[in-house]
């Protein structure tokens, strides 16, 4: 019997991924630990290793296939002595959609599930407890629109209470989110929301010519998370101007002193942020419906632009790290981010984020908060500007920094206190060398 190689779940939340590349070809001998293929998940590309020995008999899911469900059979491994015939009986490989595939038919994704008889798929069956079913019927809630929180996603009593907008203390978070549209008829709301289909967008643009660029997993995650953030997090913005002449001088001195040391302005910004968060811990916090979580360490996520999107590797416990450490860690993370080789734990989490567009000449901007973080610092370019000092005009190198703040967690005064501490450190960089 050939061994099924399944689409692995590379993180607890992963439900599907793209089969980026097959490293082994049909007929290749495979040892345990060999890299079989690469899989593109939400944010990173990961290698899938063989767990058993054999010959790669048949590739079921072709290179380039998107949205492969976790646990779907992606290939068959032949054990010693098995012929390729055994694999030949397997279903033909699913063709990868050609890049310029004519994608005019709607609901292509929905049509796909048909040719996988073996896959575990609940299909149209709704899993709900008897009590949940009866309560849904009585409350006029359509089970199809309810997300189950019970074992294996089963719909339980609490889910119906939440969907029906019945206030129950334990279920408050869900209930609160759903409450505004809790009119019985609105239960089917998800389907009613206007979907931004390609056709609709093309029509809105006036049916002009265009090129299609597929939405990568990363693109979908960016779209989803940032839309959610802008819609659910009450942002406000605080801007401060920092003079960085001193900082640039010290940076040049430090980098000149040690061979190979290349501390960037951004490394100073990371360190100053971490120290300022330590000084103003109220700014290092996240919102939850139960309590505000004030973090005991400053894990700073730094946005890095990569091909096709961006990723936010994290400098963990940055408050305890010196400039040299931050600099070398950041260089390593940045390089691996660009190569798509970051590990999950290196870019998931964090307590605060920094986005720096200074190198692109942006004077100042405001960034979208990356939940669950309570704030994000948008850093502009350092440039010479006229400033007034002691009543006289002077020239200084100035860098504008704008803090986007989640008002549920951090109020204006706290945000200002953080920026004051940050500015103090940036303008007196010796104080952050300690």
């Amino acid at each position, binding site marked *: 019997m050939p061994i099924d190689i399944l689409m692995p779940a590379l993180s607890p939340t992963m439900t599907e991924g793209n089969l980026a590349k097959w490293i082994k070809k049909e007929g290749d001998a495979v040892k345990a630990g060999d890299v079989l293929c690469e899989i593109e998940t939400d944010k990173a590309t990961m290698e899938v290793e063989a767990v058993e020995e054999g010959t790669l008999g048949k590739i079921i899911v072709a290179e380039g296939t998107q949205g492969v469900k976790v646990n779907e059979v992606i290939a068959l491994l032949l054990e010693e002595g098995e012929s390729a015939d055994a694999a030949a009986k397997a279903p033909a490989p699913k063709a990868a959609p050609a890049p310029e595939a004519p994608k005019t038919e709607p609901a292509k994704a929905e049509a796909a599930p048909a040719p996988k008889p073996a896959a575990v798929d609940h299909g149209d069956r709704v899993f709900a407890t008897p009590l949940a079913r009866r309560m849904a019927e*009585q409350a006029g809630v359509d089970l199809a629109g309810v997300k189950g929180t*019970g074992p294996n996603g089963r719909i339980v009593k609490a889910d119906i209470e939440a969907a029906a907008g019945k206030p129950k203390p334990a279920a408050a978070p869900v209930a609160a989110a759903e409450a505004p549209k809790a009119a019985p008829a609105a239960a089917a709301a998800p389907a009613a929301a206007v979907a931004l289909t390609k056709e609709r967008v093309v029509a809105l643009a006036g049916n002009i010519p265009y090129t299609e660029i597929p939405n990568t997993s990363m693109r979908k995650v960016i779209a989803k998370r940032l839309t959610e953030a802008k819609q659910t997090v009450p942002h406000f913005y605080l801007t401060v101007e920092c003079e960085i002449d001193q900082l640039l001088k010290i940076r040049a001195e430090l980098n000149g002193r040690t061979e190979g040391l290349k501390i960037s302005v951004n490394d100073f910004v990371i360190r100053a942020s971490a120290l300022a968060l330590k000084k103003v811990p109220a700014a290092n916090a996240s919102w939850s419906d139960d309590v505000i979580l004030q973090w005991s360490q400053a894990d700073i996520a730094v946005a890095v632009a990569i091909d096709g999107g961006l990723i936010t590797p994290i400098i963990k416990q940055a408050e305890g790290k010196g400039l040299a450490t931050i600099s070398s860690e950041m260089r390593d993370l940045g390089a691996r981010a660009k190569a798509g080789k970051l590990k999950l734990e290196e870019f998931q989490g964090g307590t605060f984020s920094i986005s720096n567009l200074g190198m692109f000449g942006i004077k100042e901007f405001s960034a979208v908060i990356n939940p669950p973080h309570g704030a994000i610092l948008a850093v502009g370019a350092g440039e010479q500007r006229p400033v007034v000092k002691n009543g006289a005009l002077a020239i200084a190198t100035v860098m504008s920094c704008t803090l986007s703040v989640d008002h549920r967690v951090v109020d204006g005064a706290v945000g200002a206190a953080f920026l004051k501490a940050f500015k103090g450190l940036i303008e007196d960089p010796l104080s952050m060398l300690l």
Partner: protein
Amino acid sequence: MAEQNFDLIVVGGGPGGYVAAIRAAQLKMNVALVEREHLGGICLNWGCIPTKALLRTSEINHLLHHLDAYGFKAENVSFDIAKIVDRSRKVANQLSGGVKHLLKKNKVTVFDGSAKLDGVAGGNRKIKVEKDGKPVADLTAKNVILATGARARQAPGMEGDGKLIWTYKDAMVPKELPKSLLVVGSGAIGIEFASFYHNLGVDVTVVEMMDRVLPVEDEEISAFAKKSFEKQGLKIRTSATVKDVKKAANSVTATIEAGGKTESITVDRVIVAIGIVGNVEGIGLEGTKIKVEKTHVVADGHLYTGEPGVYAIGDLVGPPWLAHKASHEGIIAVETIAGMKTHAMDVTNIPGCTYCMPQVASVGLTEAKAKAAGHEVKVGRFPYIGNGKAIAMGETEGLIKTVFDAKTGELLGAHMIGAEVTELIQGYVVAKNLETTEAQLMETIFAHPTLSEMMHESVLDAYGRAIHF
């Protein structure tokens, strides 16, 4: 002392702690367990298990004195209390040894001593282990589960002295059988001892402050139990308090006040079973964010205390104070630590069992509590006297009561008294946990002849459909 690092440190080796440690080991954590006295905790060594051994012997004694009903005849039936106690201790020791083996099998490192939270270093919790005031080990781990349990609550003026006034521990290892006994408190522990001693022929009086025995149970069950106990010859004083105790050389005279009247009784021994207090002292809670309310640590539905990396489970936290609740909390805490999706503890799904005679078992809301929570209820009842198996067994005293939400058919609670109800209750617990309604319970086929048929009939009765009554 060199620090030893673990993924998880469990403080306390009772049914909460040792289960948590094993679950964590299953999840590939490197686990340390610190126990100061005996693996298995109170449950195994001085609680659930040895008392069940004692109660079994007392049931046998009861049966031996009622052989006539079954056509037997035996004369000069007697027992040796030392042997009865010895058997109970052997049972406890066997199981404690079993826990030791299980922990070893799961590669849990066990430390003998008392543990104390000792601050944080490098993102890890520090734990100091001491034995008899001497340091044993310094441990560190990202997470700590506190499972230090509880101890008997002392009554002012009736502090246990090990001689005349007993706590549960003394009551489990009597050197000789008292002729008369006063039990203060009619919760599960008090009533079980009352039943045990009464069945061995001791003259037992129970004093309860509340207006009924087994006050956490459904009122109807409490009333049924009281009537049954009194029929057996137990003396029950409800809405009563012990005003004063005077100790003599080998007896105690207690003044009991009930309804404005006082009575004075003289007994050989007194058992005080008026509840428990959490073991919150000496474990380093000072200076942490951990809150203690009424001698118990405050934790959320996932057993998190609010202090980073510190969870608390079992008798140390809120009620009900039951071994199986502690074990389940241990699982929730460990799986939460492991980042798994866990469900918050729902106390209405925790069964409670009392092994007196007749046995009492329940799950969920009592009829009164269901009404107080705003439910319109449908109540079903079925008596043991209507059940073939019960009659065949000669166990015709008992009642099974079910409480449903009239609108949704949700099983809100089940309350049982009678033979073997402590085993039967699990049927309702499963049903409740799966959120079945009366419809699924009615559709379920119950084997005949069994006591469990009464569980079916009780559900049918709630909807006016009982067949056999």
